[in-house]
Every structure is written in C-alpha cells, then in structure tokens.
C-alpha cells in the first residue's frame, strides 16, 4: 500500500512539473504574468505612463480595426476555397485545354505579389455598380477580399490537386471493384481522405492570409493598421507609436499562433494514421 502511494505521489509530482512547464511555455500565461508584474509596479509608483493611458483610449478603435481584418481574412478564404476547389478539380479534368487554362490561372496568381494584386483589384473595379437604376456600392474592403481570395484560390487549387493525387490508385481500384460509380468513389472514398490531408496546409494558408490583411490599410481600408497609424499621428509621441505597433504585433500573434499550433497538432495526428 505504502509503495503504491509513493508511486502515485511520484507520478503526481512528475505531472505537476509537466503542468508547470506547460504553463511557463504558454505565451498567454507569460503575457498575463507580465501584465500582473507591470500593474504591481504601477501600484507601487502611483502613476500610469501617458502612452499606456492613450493606448487604453485607442483600444476600442484598434479592436474594431482588427475585426475588419478578421472579416476580410474569413471572406477571402471562403472565396479562395470555393474557386480553388473548382480549379483544383478542373486541373485533373480529361480535357487538355481545360487543364492548360487552369494551369495558367494557378501560375499567374501564385506568382503575383499579394500587394500588387490588392492594388490591381482596387483600381480595376469601380467604387459602385449601376444595376438599372440602383447603385450598388463596391467598397474597398471587398476589393481586398477579392485580391487576397485570388491569391488564396491559386494555392488552394494546388493543395487540392496534390491531395487528390496523393490518394493511392489502389483506392480507386478497390472502390471500383466494390461496384461504386465514379461520382460515388469521388464523394465517399477520395474526397473524405483529401479533406484530412488538406486541412493542415489550408489552415497554414489561413494564418498567412490573415497576416496579409494588414496590407488593406494601403488602399484606404480602415483596418487595424490604419487605426494604429491614425492614433500614432494624433498622439504624436514616439513612445506611443512604438507601443501601439507592438500591440498590433501581439494582436496578430495571438490570432495566428493558435491556428499554427492547431495545424501542427493535426499534422501530428495525421502522421499516426
């Protein structure tokens, strides 16, 4: 009994050590700790520095800006995924002409700098459409969505093509011998296996696109970078400028880092199966 208990205690010890280790490598926890330390210092000194009080004032604007970035990234990924899946499938079509066209599309948009694409879509499209006598506005942020979506679609088309081709031909043979039709094989056998393989690179791309949304400020979208620029011009203090851009880095980090971690976890799980 006694030895049992000691073993259990030892095990608990190891666990708690591991737990503590996990805490101290967790960036959220480190940030929290840092904030606590800073607060304690301020409490002792009895005053809050000017840049910080300013940051507090501008925080709602920053958050609203960040929301714009997130919106743009999600819509761009939706658009990119929709186009990318269609083009990825077409790149395996029996028609040679179709394959060539898709190949061309993918190469053009894969090799285009994102910023150039964003400028391109901003100035190619009008600011509103005239449909009969209605005027439908075509806002700048949506043009950014299209620019980023085009870039994403080319990459997703490649990811999808690669995933389909990575399914061994024996799976096709096996499904055929089970009397399934081509469309059924695609739907029940090939696609589900593709989705599992595509998820990690897709999430990687999502993190990348999210970071690229910071370019939207360059074409006049009121995103988080635009907000930070306005704030820094208004406050006009070097220490505040440094602080607010640092805050931006943190914002992006805490949005993208969990995605990267989840991707890694998925990849690990995939290796096991």
């Amino acid at each position, binding site marked *: 009994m006694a030895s049992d208990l000691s073993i259990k205690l030892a095990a608990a010890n190891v666990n708690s050590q591991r737990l503590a280790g996990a805490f101290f490598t967790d960036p959220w926890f480190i940030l929290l700790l840092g904030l606590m330390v800073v607060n304690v210092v301020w409490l002792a000194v009895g005053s809050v520095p000017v840049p910080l009080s300013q940051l507090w004032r501008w925080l709602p604007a920053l958050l609203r800006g960040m929301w714009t970035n997130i919106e743009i990234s999600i819509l761009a990924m939706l658009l990119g995924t929709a186009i990318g899946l269609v083009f990825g499938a077409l790149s395996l079509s029996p028609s040679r002409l179709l394959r060539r066209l898709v190949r061309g599309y993918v190469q053009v948009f894969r090799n285009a700098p994102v910023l150039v694409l964003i400028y391109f879509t901003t100035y190619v499209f009008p600011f509103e459409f005239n449909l009969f006598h209605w005027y439908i506005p075509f806002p700048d942020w949506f043009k950014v969505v299209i620019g980023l979506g085009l870039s994403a679609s080319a990459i997703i088309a490649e990811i999808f093509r690669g995933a389909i081709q990575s399914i061994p031909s*024996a*799976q096709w*043979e096996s499904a*055929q*011998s*089970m*009397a*399934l039709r081509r469309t*059924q094989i695609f739907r029940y056998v090939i696609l589900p296996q593709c989705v599992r393989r595509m998820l990690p690179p897709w999430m990687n791309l999502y993190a990348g696109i999210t970071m690229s949304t910071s370019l939207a400020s360059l074409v006049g979208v009121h995103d988080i970078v635009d907000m930070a620029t306005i704030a820094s011009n208004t406050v006009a203090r070097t220490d505040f400028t440094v602080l607010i851009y640092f805050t931006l880095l943190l914002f992006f980090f805490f949005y993208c880092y969990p995605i990267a971690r989840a991707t890694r976890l998925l990849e690990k799980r995939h290796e096991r199966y």
Partner: protein
Amino acid sequence: MNATESFSPTVLRSPQRALVQLNNVHLSFKENEVLKGIDVSVRQGQSVSIIGPSGSGKSTILRTITGLLRPQRGEIQVCGFPVHTLKSEKEFVELRKRVGFVFQQYNLFPHLSVLENLMISPVKVLGLSRQEAKERAFELLRNVHMEHKETAYPGELSGGQQQRVAIARALAMRPELILFDEVTSALDPEMVGEVLNVIRDLVRDGITCVLVTHEMRFAEEVSDVLYFTEAGHIVESGDPERIFRQPRNERTRVFLRRALGEAAPLAAPRSVQLG
C-alpha cells in the same frame, strides 16, 4: 465438386455452363506483352487456383475478369457479361456487383470504420437499408472471426485482420464469384493461417472463386482445377493432385520442385513484381 471428374477440357470450355470463360486473351502494357493467349474456364461452384512464377500474368488475369484491365484481343464472358466489349459505367457496375475482388494489399477504405467499410456498397450500390446492411455486416464479421472489431479503423488492425475484413467486404455484396489476388502475400507468416482458414470455409460452403496464390499446398487442397501460368501462357491445367504428383510439363515440374522442395515455401523470398 468432385475434383477428379470435374476436369476435362471439353467440358470446361462449354460456354453455357461456365461462369467465367476467357478465350485467347491477349493483353500488353505498351511493348510488354503480359498475356499471350489465355484460356480459362470456371464453372459455378468451382474453386480454381492459378499458380506460377511472379510476373507470369496471374494477377493480370484476375483484373481482366472484373474489367479493371481491358485486353487487346480475345473474349471474356463473366456471369453472362461480355466483359471485353463493356463500355458504360453502368455495365461495369452491374458486372462488379456480381464479382468480388480481394486485393493483396487489402485496400480497405482507411477513413471508414470496419462496419462502414462493409456497409458502403450494399447501401450505395445495392440499395439496402442501413439496418439490413448492418445486420449483413455483423453476420459476415462473425464468419471471418472479426466480431467486436466493427468500430475499429483499418489502420488499427493487423494485416491478417485487415485481409479478413476485406474478404467480408467483398462478400457483403453477395457476389456470384470472388477473386482472390495473392491475398496472403503481404502478410506476416503467422497471419497467413487465419486468412486461409476463412477462404477454406468459403470454399467448403460452395462459393465460386478464383485464387491467385503462392500457397502451393493450399491451392492443392482447396481447388478443383489448377492452372499453371508462365510468361503469359497457360502451360498446364487440370486436377491439382495430378499436377502436383506428376506434372506433364517440364517447366511446371521445375517450378513445383522449387516451390515445394525448398524448406518452407511460405518463407521463400519473392520478387516484388506482382504476377
């Protein structure tokens, strides 16, 4: 089913009685001629084995039977279908409903559980209700001694277990004919027995089957007719006992001496190239 009287070339080649009939089948991959005029006949209820060296065209014969490969010349009649002339997907589906295929590498669907592997075609192709398909699947899993494993995924099973599931999956379609393509060649030696036992039971129950195998003793034991192929030709065919005891052809004699004579045919190194 009496092996000694079932073999006679004239009886075997009468098309109205044969479930499978291959006449003068030629097939080549580009320059490489794999089948050089193959004649095979399988009657209802017969168990037929094809043996021969690796690369002699054994697996290719099975693939032509179920239409996975199309010969350049020759006629193939399977379950009443002229396989060599089939074109539309619908016709192939009708053929493959009746012909089961078990692969050397099992080829289960890795993203589906054992139960779902057995249910997908009965539900999607035969139109069974999920309940009916499930009952059928459970019964078959019992037959191959894989009950209690229905929720497992193929990746969690041993090779022998996967192969037994693959056999059950083929049987779930209630095929008239089942083709076994070197089903024990990818298995560790200790798992060969469990798979052969399942096949032995099936043959005993009177299923029509064609076995491509390297298990000489097993082929001799279960088959009514044996074919020996070499380099794309059928060199010798007939009653397995007769062929094993006194092969007429010199090449059959050399092959059998090598396959049976050397210590353990199971452990003998094999070429990677499939037959």
